[in-house]
């Protein structure tokens, strides 16, 4: 069992329960609460403050990927004419829609609303429009202008004005009103959860690192799907205590930490453990990554609509290559990493195109080696075990030589 190479967290079961409860609630125990499908970068605080229950099709895609069930869903989407080159979360979702309850995990419950924010990519726009046609469900598109250089005042105003529209949209379709006090409370949960998640990630500066990439990927689920809930805060408190204890007792995530690495891009879900075990075997631990940190953004104080606008427009995937390169560089330095691995994820063009230039720049500037692995987050058909192994081996040799 490759999982033996990973020290299991005590709160792993709590996490499983938490996520299961979330899906069970979404399906059976909403008691009339309207359900919205939302993108991972949607301003969910507003929705929760209007008593809307959010579910995340991207998370569903990741779950199916990790269970090895995404390919069948992708094939179902391809049979409807959708190209096999489109994002595999989106294809999984389209496949799931057509399979109904026969889909893995019983599929996602039918949405009453769709809320799509393009701060992560343009794919979600097309995907949510397809869902809107399929379910004949109203869709709200929150347009957050991409930041090639700085966030402008008029962008913030533009997004804030749309957030007001979003409130009207939700009210119109659900009859629920925005509760300002609840919004404050929810924003505070959001901030507590993200602060804890951020601290947990910070703890990985310790040598040996208490967590490895698969831990980060698995434990990020609540910061996405349950962000802004009391449950998420509770879970991250527990996780924080456990990770802190590991640090105090000098317990590392992997048996022998020789190298510290930083990861870029979404996980290769269908190989989550096996892929990283190639690194574990050689004493390499992923102490940080660009992806799971993306959801550690704090909502600033002030007028809530403007803060939400500012925060959600500034998510890292909505910012330039230069910004993301700097982020990677900062992580490498902050976490004293010896190298970095970039997953060239053919599903996710906005995250992946440009990685070659980032790699060159980053290795030049902080003098640590990097490698690019070609794969896909959910579609295992494009994954070549042999190729991946060869690349990792060559990279580890470079590390050995540099070390």
């Amino acid at each position, binding site marked *: 069992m490759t999982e033996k190479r990973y020290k299991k967290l005590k709160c792993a079961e709590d996490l499983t329960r938490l996520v299961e409860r979330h899906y069970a609630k979404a399906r059976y125990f909403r008691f009339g609460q309207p359900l919205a499908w939302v993108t991972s970068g949607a301003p969910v605080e507003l929705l929760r403050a209007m008593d809307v229950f959010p579910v995340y099709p991207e998370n569903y895609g990741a779950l199916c990927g990790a269970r090895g069930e995404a390919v069948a869903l992708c094939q179902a989407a391809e049979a*409807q*004419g*959708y*190209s096999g*080159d*489109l*994002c595999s979360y989106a294809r999984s979702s389209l496949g799931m829609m057509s399979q109904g309850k026969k889909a893995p995990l019983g599929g996602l419950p039918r949405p009453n609303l769709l809320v799509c924010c*393009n701060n992560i*990519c*343009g*794919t979600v*726009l*097309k*995907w949510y*429009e*397809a869902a809107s*046609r399929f379910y004949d469900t109203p869709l709200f*598109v*929150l*347009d957050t*202008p*991409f930041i*090639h250089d700085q966030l*402008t005042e*008029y*962008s913030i*105003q*533009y997004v804030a*004005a*749309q957030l007001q*529209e979003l409130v009207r949209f939700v009210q119109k379709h659900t009859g629920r009103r925005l509760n300002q006090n609840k919004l404050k409370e929810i924003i505070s949960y959001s901030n507590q959860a993200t602060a804890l998640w951020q601290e947990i990630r910070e703890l990985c500066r310790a040598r040996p690192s208490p967590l490895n990439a698969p831990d980060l990927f698995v434990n990020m689920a609540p910061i996405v799907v349950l962000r802004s809930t009391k449950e998420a805060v509770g879970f991250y408190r527990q996780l924080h205590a456990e990770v802190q204890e590991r640090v105090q007792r000098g317990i590392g995530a992997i048996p022998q930490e020789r190298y510290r690495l930083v990861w870029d891009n979404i996980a290769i879900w269908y190989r989550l453990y096996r892929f990283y075990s190639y690194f574990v075997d050689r004493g390499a631990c992923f102490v940080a990554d660009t992806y799971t940190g993306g959801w550690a953004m704090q909502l600033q104080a002030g007028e809530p609509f403007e803060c939400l606008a500012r925060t959600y427009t500034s998510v890292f995937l909505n910012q*330039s*290559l*230069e910004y993301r390169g700097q982020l990677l560089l900062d992580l490498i330095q902050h976490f004293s990493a010896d190298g970095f691995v970039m997953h*060239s994820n*053919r599903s996710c*063009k*906005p995250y*992946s*195109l*440009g*990685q*070659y*230039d980032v790699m060159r*720049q980053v290795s030049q500037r902080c003098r640590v080696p990097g490698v690019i692995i*070609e794969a896909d987050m959910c579609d295992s058909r494009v994954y070549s075990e042999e190729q991946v192994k060869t690349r990792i081996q060559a990279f580890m040799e470079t590390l050995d030589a540099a070390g």
Partner: protein
Amino acid sequence: MAHPFLDSCRDWPARYPNRRAIGYLCTYVPEEILHAAGFVPVRLLKANDAIAHADAHLQSYCCALARSALDQALAGKLGFLEGMVFPHTCDTIQCLADVWRVNFPGLFVTTIVQPVAVEGPHAQSYLVAELRRFLRRLEDRFGISVTDEALGDGIRVHNRTRQLLGQLSLRREQVPATTYFDILRASTLMPKEEFNDLLAEMLLAMDSSLLAKNESTEKSCSSRFLTTENAENTEKKVKISARSACSAVKSLFFSGVKNEPRGENAFTTSKVTSRRPRLILVGPYLDDPSLLKLIHGLGGQVVADDVCTGSRYFETPVSEDGDPVQALAQRYLERRPCPCKAGSLPRRSEALIGLAKVHQAEGVVFVLPKFCDPHAWDYPPLAQALDKAGVPHLLLETEQTVSGEQMRTRIQAFLEMISYQ
């Protein structure tokens, strides 16, 4: 075969030694503003050369247009461009803008982040602010000041281009498909005033030959009831007058270009009066006339399109009244949307069915380059809408390992199928 305009970026500086140029890729870039700032907007398209440099920067799953454009720049073929402007359209362009910046650090590389929710109530004021920022950047970088008069002028010149191209499109069936696309290509490379004059001249030339033809078409119609010999004669006359219009086009647009398309004169094969299946093309861009030649050679006829290098380029004029920046913003929000825009599908689908009706099209051909997400997303629902409307359609995926022969067979089968319907 090298197409004169595919590589024409290369000899652009030789053709227009006294002009300044800024490059762009997508029709969401307001050329009017570049014009007002004293630049000729030059649209980059995919070149035929094999990719030599871009592989080190863009993965294989990036569309060929982006890869080729970057490749041309890295190969030093675009040294005459004093800048590049990227609008916000697809994720690929978004990344390409940043990759360009990284690789050409001294160059003026700027972006216009157009709204995606173009129908939203706040899109207009946002876009106006964004366009003004773009203007300021141009001014700061080049030490110029762009007046409202200059903007108004840019708008009028481009409206004229749109109007002339619109007129040309009405005569589309008299122009061979490849020539039609060549002229469109020329419109995105040449200084607009120069282009406008040439096209106006050509339309005149066409009209006079058309006049002759109309007469003869009339005659040929009536002659059907007379002798076949007569009909043949008039057919010949049509061909001759059309041929002279064609050589006029060529001398107007392609003068001084090496690699003149091989002797073959497309006009001679265009039989207006014949029964050719009428087709509509849909896709992001057409970079290479060989597909059009193939369709034509197999007996098809392209009568309309929804292609960014086709009609989508010249539709929707800009209002010439009021504040020019407001007017520009309005045009770019109201034009027939590209698939990257929110809510675009119903409008595209309606427009496509409308086109099919108006042009009495018998089939739709989707030309989808590999890895073009936005168009790939719209293909299944558009195909479905066409099915419902009873319009047959064909999907041609380009940049694939599909051989020319396979492509030919597919088109042929499609044409046969629709001919028998």
